[in-house]
């Protein structure tokens, strides 16, 4: 099984690497770059929501903090981008540490809304402070090189994927996190410190999001509290991860690709019909959940699992199905 995965991963990566060489259509590269960004955001959100069972409705706050860190370091203290970008991840991680300690004590909907309130509070702080430029936002020196941003975004998201894949699927961390999600007090008796592990998962989810925020700032050249600290980042990352399938790596990836490319295709090619694309996208998302309550990936793997079982002639009772790979029921 593993050998085929690596081959598949290598071939996809190689296609993506040669893409900018065979085309210099800037809009096409920009769309794929933004798709990468959303894949990264959806995966980062799923690390906390799917694997650890904590729904972060303020996920966008790390994106905004990353964006503002890079912008402030570059514009106010003349850092160069190669230093300002990692700094975005570091600051996001630090904020995750301090915000995580009190907030991770909460559970379920309360954690979700507390993180939402936190992200709204940070947005108001950005609106009021001088250093962030308040509502006027901040402009960064425009460096509009589609290939550079394509490669850098691909690099960051691939590194994030590999990091998550290693930590969540191969190393011990993934299992510990799932144990915490399944039964926190039971896990304590086995030597797992829930608070430490949850904070680690929170930071692991925040750092890539912060770096992607820093990338966004330099790429779009303008940020303001409404765009980088608004609800768009959180809402879309949540919908993509859940639509794709929680608690897996490939769920958010597929969810991000499908939803983003659908939205962009409708937006670009139904442009003459004003907001018709919003109606279609909303309808599609709603219908998809009605017909696939387990998310795209959950249904897919459920289907593949069931077919494999039939081929092997085993009488598979749904309960006993091998569920390690699939999205799991997250407990509140």
């Amino acid at each position, binding site marked *: 099984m593993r050998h085929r995965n690596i081959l598949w991963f290598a071939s996809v990566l190689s296609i993506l690497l040669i893409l900018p060489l065979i085309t210099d259509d800037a809009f096409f590269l920009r769309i794929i770059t933004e798709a990468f960004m959303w894949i990264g955001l959806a995966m980062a959100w799923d690390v906390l929501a799917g694997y650890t069972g904590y729904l972060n409705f303020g996920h966008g706050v790390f994106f905004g903090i990353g964006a503002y860190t890079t912008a402030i370091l570059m514009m106010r203290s003349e850092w160069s981008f190669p230093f300002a970008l990692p700094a975005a991840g570091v600051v996001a991680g630090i904020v995750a540490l301090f915000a995580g300690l009190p907030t991770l004590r909460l559970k379920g909907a309360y954690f979700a809304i507390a993180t939402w309130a936190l992200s709204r509070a940070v947005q108001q702080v950005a609106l009021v402070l001088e250093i962030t430029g308040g509502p*006027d936002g901040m402009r960064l020196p425009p460096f*509009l090189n589609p290939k550079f941003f394509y490669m850098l975004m691909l690099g960051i998201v691939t590194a994030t994927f590999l990091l998550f894949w290693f930590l969540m699927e191969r190393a011990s961390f993934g299992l510990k996190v799932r144990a915490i999600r399944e039964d926190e007090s039971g896990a304590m008796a086995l030597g797992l410190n829930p608070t430490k592990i949850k904070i680690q998962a929170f930071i692991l989810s925040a750092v890539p999001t912060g770096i992607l925020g820093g990338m966004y700032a330099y790429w779009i050249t303008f940020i303001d509290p409404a765009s980088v600290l608004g609800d768009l980042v959180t809402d879309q990352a949540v919908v993509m991860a859940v639509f794709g399938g929680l608690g897996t790596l490939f769920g958010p990836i597929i969810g991000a690709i499908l939803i983003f490319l659908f939205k962009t295709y409708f*937006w670009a090619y139904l442009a003459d019909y004003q907001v018709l694309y919003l109606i279609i996208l909303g309808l599609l998302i709603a219908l998809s959940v009605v017909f696939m309550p387990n998310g795209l990936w959950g249904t897919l793997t459920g289907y593949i699992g069931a077919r494999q079982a039939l081929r092997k002639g085993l009488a598979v009772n749904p309960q006993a199905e091998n569920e390690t790979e699939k999205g799991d029921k997250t407990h509140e």
Partner: protein
Amino acid sequence: MKHCLIAVLIFTLFTANPLLAEEARDFFKVGVITSLSGDLATGGNVTKRGYDLWANTLNAQGGIQIKDKKYTVKLFYADAQSEPSQGASAAERLATQEKVDFVLGPYSSGVTLAVAPVLEKYKIPMITGSAESPLIWKQKFFYTFGTVPPVNYTGATPIQTLAKMNPAPKTAVILGSNDAFSKATAEAFKDAAEKLGIKVLKFNIVPSGQDLTPFMSAVKVLQPDLVAFGGHDEELINLVKSLRQINYTPKALLMHYGVTEPAFIESLGKDAEQVFGASVWTTSVHAKSDMLWPDAAAYGKAAEEAFKVPADYTQAGSSTAGLAFQAALQKIEAVPPLSEANREALIKALEELEIQTFYGKLKFAKEGEYYHANVGITPLTIQIQNGKVVIVGPEKDAEAAAQYPLKPWGQR
């Protein structure tokens, strides 16, 4: 490996279309980037209407007359969704995929600030028909122009008109919503008031969309002569309703932007009466022109027929953006598709442009704080008088006297 070959094939097909040679055509491709959804949908749609009216009227007359041939215009729309990143994507799509000749730009400063660098890269001229934030012009974008002067240029006029009332207002409370445009508006009002010796008792920036009734209850205690508010359409309506509900009538109520919008009068009815606003155009401006619409009233009628709603200066400014391109193209006699040299010449032509339109005099500043903004037009003070937007200042342009002080809500 079979899958990879297929995947590569699909990708190359997808990317093949820009390689097609650019064939000659007899129409100009015009990109339109406005926010049709998201928080700024109202302003974005009004701007789009202005561009549509220009394009439809122009095409109805056969198009732009260049040398012996008439070239129509075809609009290519993109919804910026009130998100700077979507604006940048829209700009790149229109520049590389549709290969537009020039762009009619967004309503919000944030989207404009994200779109402008992309168009600078592709050297595509853009005129925004409705962006009023001073931020844009301070960045000195070479390829970006604006037909509506920024609010730090227009904001002073209403305060100057009010200062001439007798008895002139001596105290004021000025507030603005916490977004780039509204904050700039409130600051413009404040600077003008202080220059004219009006004592500003309270100056606050409030969260946008906030229910201001408690704030107004506190203002009611201060009893200032003038209350001035910078915000967007809905916030203005809510503020008047708050004042109405706590039964507090200041001597003068000045607000911007939204007073000139039909929704303001339609929603508030007689409560909209005697509210002051800032504007640069109304249907009763005396301006003569030989381009598309002979005068303001003709444009007003055409807009009312097209959209069943009276036009305001944002829509007029957007149509004028089209006129500016039309005039500049005729001057440099460039035919579609515009080459880079054509577009360079188009910028030069726009900078030298000085024309009379139904909207008023159009002249773009060539340097300074208002670089590439229209400084030819004269800022006006308007007031709602029996359901219509009436110019009450400055004196030479006034069509009626300003009604001051405000008649208390109860006696209307």
